[in-house]
Structure formats: C-alpha cells, structure tokens
C-alpha cells in the first residue's frame, strides 16, 4: 500500500516539476557579458570600477537614495587617500547639535560621519517622489535575489516596450526585471549622465555595471578578507584532515 502511495507521489512530483510559464513572470537577472570580477572563490572587487560606481551613486542615485549604513571613512577601501576621503566628506552638510547654547547647527562632514540622506525622513522622501519610497541602498545587493546582477539588469533594462496586453499606468515605468513589470523609478541612467574621472566611456551599460559593483561592495565590504581568510582556513583544514586520517588509521591498526 505504501509502495502504491510512493508511485502516486513520484508521478505527481514528475508532473509538478514542469515549470508554469506566465506572462507576469519577471525576467531572471543576468550578469554583464564579461561577468563580475568579484565572482568565484578567488574574485576581488575592481577598484577602478568601484570608484566609477561611487561617482555614479554620488551624482545620480544619491539625489533620492540614502546609503545610511556606510560612513565616509569606509571609502578608503575604494583606493581613495585619506585627504580625498576628507574632501568627499566635507562636501556633505551634517545637521548636528545641540551646541552649548542648545541650538542645532550645520557643519561640513567628517570621515567619521555616516552618508547623508537626501531626505530627513520617509514621509519627505515619499512626498518628493509621488508617494513612492526610494529604498536605502546599503544592503540592496544582498536584499534581492540575483544581487548585483539584479541591480545591473534592472538599471540597464529600462526603455523596452511592454508586450501587447500589458498596460503601464501613467507615472509607472516598464521594466521586465521588476516584480509586476512596473516600477515607480524613472530610468535613472542615460549615456554620459556622468563624466568619468578616469575617462572611461559612460554608456548606460557601463554605468549600470559600475554602480552595481559599487553597491555590491557597499553591502559586503569584507568580501575580499572573507575569501582570503577562507582560503587559509580551508587549506589548513584539508592538511589537518589528512593528518588526522593518518592518526586514526595508526590508532585503529592497534586493534587485537
């Protein structure tokens, strides 16, 4: 009887494993053609790409999106010198206080400050964006399936025409990578939106790639240390396992 149930189970599982295709399915995210430099067990971030991505964030994204979990001092990881980081921080205005008179005051940023948000609170952000809340980007590369590939696909996936039967209400934008195919964010990137400091040609695809890598770093700044430590740990353990196996064999050979 159980064997019979098992058979029914197997057949049903087999039938169920055929995927259901629906027009509403989001497109799976894809990595750029050259792949990600940080992928794989030995991957590292591309510092030049990170700096370009930071420039894209600063000049385009930071107008609406906050990066609250990062501090300006974290930017030394990108290859900036301390002086450059001080200068970047000083460009921001921090609302601080109270001073000894009890008043709040504005001052230029310091490396120890966290990134300044474009809006003082969520309600102000919604009011400025037709009711939609631009999410904080500090963890975006870990908070979505597909990570930085999702960010890259989303940003370079604007501008397509929706298929017949899908109507996009006014105020929304069509993007097949976003669940539901409509996103409130208008296409943020265009060719030459940024003039790259290192002279790289700023196509939408390049900007999307660089900012996605920057956000991957922002979500996981310790990735490279993690992989380096992992290499040392795993190599040690493999050698140690070999030694322990030898010990085990020697001990067990003593059996009468």
């Amino acid at each position: 009887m159980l064997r019979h149930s098992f058979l029914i189970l197997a057949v049903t599982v087999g039938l169920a494993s055929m995927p259901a295709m629906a027009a509403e399915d989001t497109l799976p995210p894809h990595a750029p053609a050259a792949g990600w430099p940080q992928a794989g067990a030995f991957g590292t971030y591309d510092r030049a790409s990170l700096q370009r991505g930071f420039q894209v964030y600063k000049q385009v994204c930071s107008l609406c999106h906050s990066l609250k979990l990062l501090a300006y001092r974290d930017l030394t990881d990108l290859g900036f010198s301390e002086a450059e980081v001080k200068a970047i921080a000083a460009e921001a205005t921090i609302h601080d206080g109270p001073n000894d008179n009890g008043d709040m005051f504005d001052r230029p940023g310091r490396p120890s400050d966290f990134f300044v948000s474009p809006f003082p609170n969520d309600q102000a952000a919604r009011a400025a964006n037709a009711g939609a809340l631009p999410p904080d980007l500090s963890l975006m590369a870990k908070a979505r399936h597909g990570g930085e590939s999702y960010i890259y696909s989303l940003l370079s996936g604007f501008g397509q025409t929706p298929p017949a039967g899908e109507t996009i209400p006014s105020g929304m934008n069509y993007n097949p990578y976003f669940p539901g195919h409509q996103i409130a964010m208008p296409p943020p990137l265009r060719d030459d939106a940024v003039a790259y400091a290192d002279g790289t040609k700023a196509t939408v695809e390049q900007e999307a790639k660089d900012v996605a890598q920057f956000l991957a770093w922002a979500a996981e700044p310790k990735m490279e240390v993690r992989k380096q430590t992992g290499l040392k740990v795993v190599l040690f353990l493999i050698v140690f396992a070999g030694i322990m196996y030898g010990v085990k064999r020697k001990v067990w050979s003593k059996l009468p």
Partner: protein
Amino acid sequence: MASSERVNFKNPVIKWVDERLPLFSLMHKEYAAFPTPKNFNYLWNFGALAMFMLVAMIATGVFLAMYYTPSTDHAFNSVERIMRDVNWGWMIRYIHMNGASMFFIAVYVHIFRGIYYGSYKKPRELLWILGVIILLLMMATAFMGYVLPWGQMSFWGATVITNLFSAIPLVGDKIVTWLWGGFSVDNPTLNRFYALHYLLPFVIFAVVFLHVAALHISGSNNPTGIDPKSAKDTVPFHPYYTAKDCFGLTVFLIFYALVVFYAPNALGDPDNYIPANPMVTPAHIVPEWYFLPFYAILRSFVWDIHIPFTHVVLISSKLGGVILMFGAVAMLLILPWLDKSPVRSAMFRPLYKKLFWVFVVACLVLGYIGGKPPEQPYVFIGQIATFVYFAFS
C-alpha cells in the same frame, strides 16, 4: 563515586583536585576508558558533531551578544555594525548564522541514524525521549534567534508562527497576546525572544548532559543492533573514537568553512536584509530550511472539520495544521512504543529498511514543498507526503 574507582594520577596538581572533586576520574571513566562497540560507522560521529556545534554556537553567540541591541529601533543596525565595524564581526556572525544550519544537519543525521538502527528501543527509550526534547528546544531557540536581526523575514516569520497559538480553542487569542507582550509582534516580543534565546542553549546544555549520562548507563548501540557480548567486542573510547571523531570533525569543519567563507548567504533568504516593516508583507513568507518540512505539514491541512450537518467548526484547518505539525514531532517521541519489533537494527529488517527510505524521501519532499508557495500542485503533493510521513509510524 567510590574511592576505589579513582584513577591514580601522576601529576600532583591533578591528584590534589581529583581527591577532593573527582572530575578527572570522571572524565577518564566516561571519555577515555568507556567501552564502546568497535564496529561504529561514521554515522555515529554526528552526536559528537552536534555537541561541538552547541559549544560553537554558545561561544559565537556570547560574542555577538556583546554588540547586539535587542530593540526594534537598533537591532538591524547593530547587526550591520557587527558585520562592518566590529573586528572579525562578519566572521563571528556568519559562523553563528550558518552554525544553526550545521547544527540541524548534524542533529537530523543523528536522528535518522537512531531511527534506522533502532537506537530508540529498550533500554534506550529515555535516551531517545531526551533527544527529542533537545530537538524541540533547538527548534525554539533557532526560531527565536532568527527573529533577532529584525529583518522582514524575522518579523513576518514571528508573526506567522506566534499566530498559530490562536488556533487553541477558547484561550488561543489570550495566549497569543500574552506571548507577544502586546497586540502584535513588536518591541516586547523582540526583547523576550532575546532573553529566551540566550537562556535556552544553557537548558539544552543541561539536557545534553542528561542525554549523554543516559547513554553511558545503557552503552552505545551499534550498526548490528546486537549488544556487545564481551570486552572483545568493545574498545576504549580513547584513543579509538577520539581519533576517529577528530577526523570526522575536521571533514565536517571543511564543509562548514566552505559555507561560511564562500557562500554565507546561500541558505538564507534575501528578504531578511530588508529592515522589518509591519506595513509591508513579503511576497513569500518562508522559514529557514530546517523548518520547511514542518511548515509543509502545517499548510497541508486545508479542511475545517464541522460537527456534521451544522456550520459549527470543531477543528479549524488552522488548528488541524497545528495539531499535525506538533504531532509530527510527538510521533518521534512515542516511536519506542510504535515499533515493537524485537529486532533492533534495520540491517536485519528488510521491509523496515525499505519503509525507512520511503520515509526519508517523504521528509525531503516535504522540505521542498515547504519552500514553495501554498498553491497547487504543491499543496496536493504536500498532503501526500504528510500522509506518508505519518503512515511510516
């Protein structure tokens, strides 16, 4: 302990301590000289691996607790501070987060070993019951631990599971309000989950002590299920099983290290990197993988049971699911009395062996179903697998 059982230690310091508190003699009796069957396979390693994981989780947990803030305003950001600014914080956090998964892997293999080889049968019934109690405590600890980072999945998983208690007739809603400390999952809930999450591992530690003590009364089972007849069938635990367990532990650690250092978020849900928002429900609320089979059983009960010919609901589908879900663990608890065969090990029970593997497949199918949305045909498959799970008993 009778003084005649004391070991004669050469080191004068150890001898001095041992005369006053025979800890060293105890350790020698229970972990060095202890006669252990010599035919263990590597499945017998997993109890020791589980003990190692308990110690690892307590150690990493204590260090995390030094930086974590159990308040809804600060919990998420305090965890991110550990990941970014605390020296080696990312490593301690990933070890703790993935350690829960490794702990459950070790314990599930350990349990399946017990079911296959009849380790729950006389005289080890109490040992088995203590083990199931450890499993229940582990499940409670893991559930509360997952709530602590206060991500979307933390909050909504807590909401779903605490709401289950409202299925209890008459007093359900009051119990849920009492558990929450309010009218929804909020700051009091987070605070008490933190307190209990810190406490329960030490309760687990105590029950593990009883579990090992009970084992040392009956002695270990072995793959044949046949009791050792003489000293020729056993070896002292040290050095034979200390060496073998160390090797097994190292292999286990290689796998653990690969996960922690190269795929630390593979077993988790990206939604938990979004701060908890009571106003936004995730598209799919899914528990961690080790709870998926129970989640599938919970969702497979879709009928209300009425008093015949009336609209009065005797057992709602919610209550039915809850009963089945706890029943799945309760079934483990009474296993020594469900299976009365005098033959212990599946090595000599060909029909039981086949049914066992059917049971394993049912558990894996339930795990897969638990991760899927509660739509057809997943619901139907889940119901069949639930039936098979209980039919196994």
